[in-house]
């Protein structure tokens, strides 16, 4: 009897797992890990070395992945909320990152021209102003979506198109370079700390969103509105405002990601900075098994999705896939992942598992 129960337990656990949202990003991560383990176990080696400034740093593919996925993970947070509440995506994040970066550099350069010897304002001031600016742009997007009922993709297309020109205009089309090394701390290493700063920033953002989801009703409200805005309204919610606010939160995420991006290279290239990152952010949400049509979401799954994407990118670089074939490889992997994360397919997997499992869990019960 005990044995039977046990078997049934395993069967239903697996069936349940297939249905669980987090399954796909976890499975994808696992497959990538196993693949790399087989192909070259040294993939996972982490070594302690020194950088050119003589500070200790940890390096290795895993560190690279954790480091470079940071911006994407942060954006995935905002994109998940936007998607859940408004049933659409913000495709302007790459362009608004350019704006955020441009604002930060503009403030730091102040009146001293594009290549100041010293920063003309504290970094925190520049960052906070960038936050305000990107939140305003987020508010613009949010207002179009929530109050003017424009399709999110169309509404954010405006900033997607105009954002990089605005970013260039902010700095009079010049390419500012910040020479002060402390500006590079946010995108690289703080002397003495061997782990890249973006990793800490991403973790901090995750902690903040976890706390927000735990100690406020953001999750409940966003999901309610995303699933059924009519009944949400009759339960006292303000669906428009909730949709609106998710875009403002997205703006905040953009500012943080923008700071990391410009700090990594201490300068900006308006046309390529964070290029196509909105697509990766949307993909992270989709890989997390979240419906792009809105409604229920799993923040953990989205963030995991972001790391899966970076893991894949790094793996492809590591195996030196030819440049012209790179997009094709990525596309194939992505198609497989996205198809597998579709609820319909997950459901089928669950059923399939039940069929191949020897016992028919439900019938015996």
């Amino acid at each position, binding site marked *: 009897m005990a044995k039977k129960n046990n078997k049934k337990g395993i069967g239903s656990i697996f069936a349940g797992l297939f249905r669980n949202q987090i399954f796909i990003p976890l499975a994808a991560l696992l497959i990538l890990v196993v693949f790399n383990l087989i192909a*070259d176990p*040294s993939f996972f*080696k982490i070594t302690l*070395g020194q*950088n*050119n*400034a003589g500070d200790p*740093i940890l*390096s*290795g*593919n895993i560190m*690279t992945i954790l480091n*470079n996925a940071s911006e994407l993970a942060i954006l995935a947070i905002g994109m998940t909320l936007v998607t859940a509440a408004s049933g659409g995506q913000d*495709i302007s994040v790459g362009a608004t990152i350019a704006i955020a970066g441009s604002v930060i550099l503009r403030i730091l350069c102040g009146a001293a021209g594009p290549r100041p010897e010293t920063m003309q304002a504290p970094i925190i001031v520049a960052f906070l102003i960038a936050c305000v600016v990107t939140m305003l742009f987020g508010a613009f997007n949010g207002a179009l979506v929530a109050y003017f009922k424009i399709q999110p*993709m*169309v509404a954010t*297309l*405006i900033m*997607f*198109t*105009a954002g*990089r*020109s605005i970013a*260039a*205009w902010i700095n009079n*089309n010049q*390419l500012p*370079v910040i020479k002060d090394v402390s500006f590079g701390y946010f995108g*690289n*290493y703080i002397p003495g700390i061997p782990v890249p700063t973006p990793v800490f920033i991403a973790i901090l953002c995750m902690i903040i969103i976890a706390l927000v989801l735990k100690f406020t009703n953001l999750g409940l409200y966003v999901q309610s509105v995303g699933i059924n805005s009519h009944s949400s309204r009759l339960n006292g919610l303000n669906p428009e405002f909730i949709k609106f606010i998710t875009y403002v939160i997205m703006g905040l995420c953009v500012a943080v990601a923008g700071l990391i*991006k410009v700090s*990594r*290279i201490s*300068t900006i*290239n*308006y*046309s*390529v*900075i964070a*290029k*196509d990152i909105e*697509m*990766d952010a949307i*993909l992270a949400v989709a890989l997390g098994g979240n419906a792009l049509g809105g409604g229920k979401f799993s923040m953990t799954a989205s963030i995991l999705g972001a790391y899966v*994407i970076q893991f894949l*990118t*790094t793996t492809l*670089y*590591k195996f*030196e896939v*030819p*440049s*012209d074939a*790179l*997009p094709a490889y*990525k*596309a194939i*992997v*992505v*198609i497989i992942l996205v198809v597998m994360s579709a609820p319909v397919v997950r459901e089928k997997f669950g059923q399939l598992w039940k069929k191949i499992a020897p016992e028919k869990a439900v019938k015996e019960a």
Partner: protein
Amino acid sequence: MKKLLSLMLAVAMIFALAACGGEKAVETPSDPTEAAGLIKVGIINNDPNESGYRTANDADMKRVFTEENGYEASFAYSLKNDEQIAAAQKFIQDEVDYLLISAAGTAGWDTVLQDAQAAGIEVILFDRTIDADESLYVASIVSDMAKEGQTAVDWLASQNLETYNVIHIQGVMGSSAQIGRTGALDTMVAENDNWNLVTQQTAEWNAETAQQIVQAVIDSGKEFNVVYAENDDMAKGAVAALDAAGISHGVDGDVIIMGFDCNKWALEELLNGNWNYDGQCNPFQADYIDEIIDGLENGEAPAEKVVIMEEKGFDATTITQADVDQYGI
């Protein structure tokens, strides 16, 4: 993966771009009175926001085609071919004397150039060529990307290293700059046993992607002594990865750093010895055009139809502050 989703958006974008493209506005000269003796030129260029190169190119045009130099210039900007062609038609109606075009796309120019010819307007192409009969324009002033690549590879060969283990970071695949700058290196590697490509990857002109590519090579523990990046941004990203890994670079360093485009900040890196080489992609075509127009006004046809601009390669050991100021864009 981006491609996949981009495709989805592409259709939507076409519409929106049509609605949002505000860059085609034609700037008419501030002084409309037709001063006697001024040569009327219509200049069609790509959006100066496109890149630092384009900004410098536009600034150079505006420097040369002024009233002081005897020109009455009108400018039109667009990254889209059809808008550029529309602007050309407008210039033909305005009866300009010369039409200067940096085409966004290569196709579709025949008709409008025939119109120009019929109206007695001379056409000069700059920076980019088009697919049209040579008789439709008097000259085209272009960069030879393949030559840029060759110059850089020749410089690298002249360093006389025992072996060349090159990290090759490419631009957007299929762009003329990428094809030209890749070609010479590929040939060299194929012909010489002591030249190896450690990796050859596209970073799509993006600094951070370049950083990741170099990081991946470092993490895999492979030996390399040259980074050949097809633009300055990517070279900068590569250097960031080297810095983080404690690998020395530049003059007296372990790794040779090569970039292209001669951004001012990049030339400063050369001056400071952090990089070794930067290849120029000359955006300064205005003087060449000015010269040709002068000749035409005096009844002399240009000696050659295709004028290839002189393009330099700067070496960290010989570069001077004067070079930085003059050639930095």
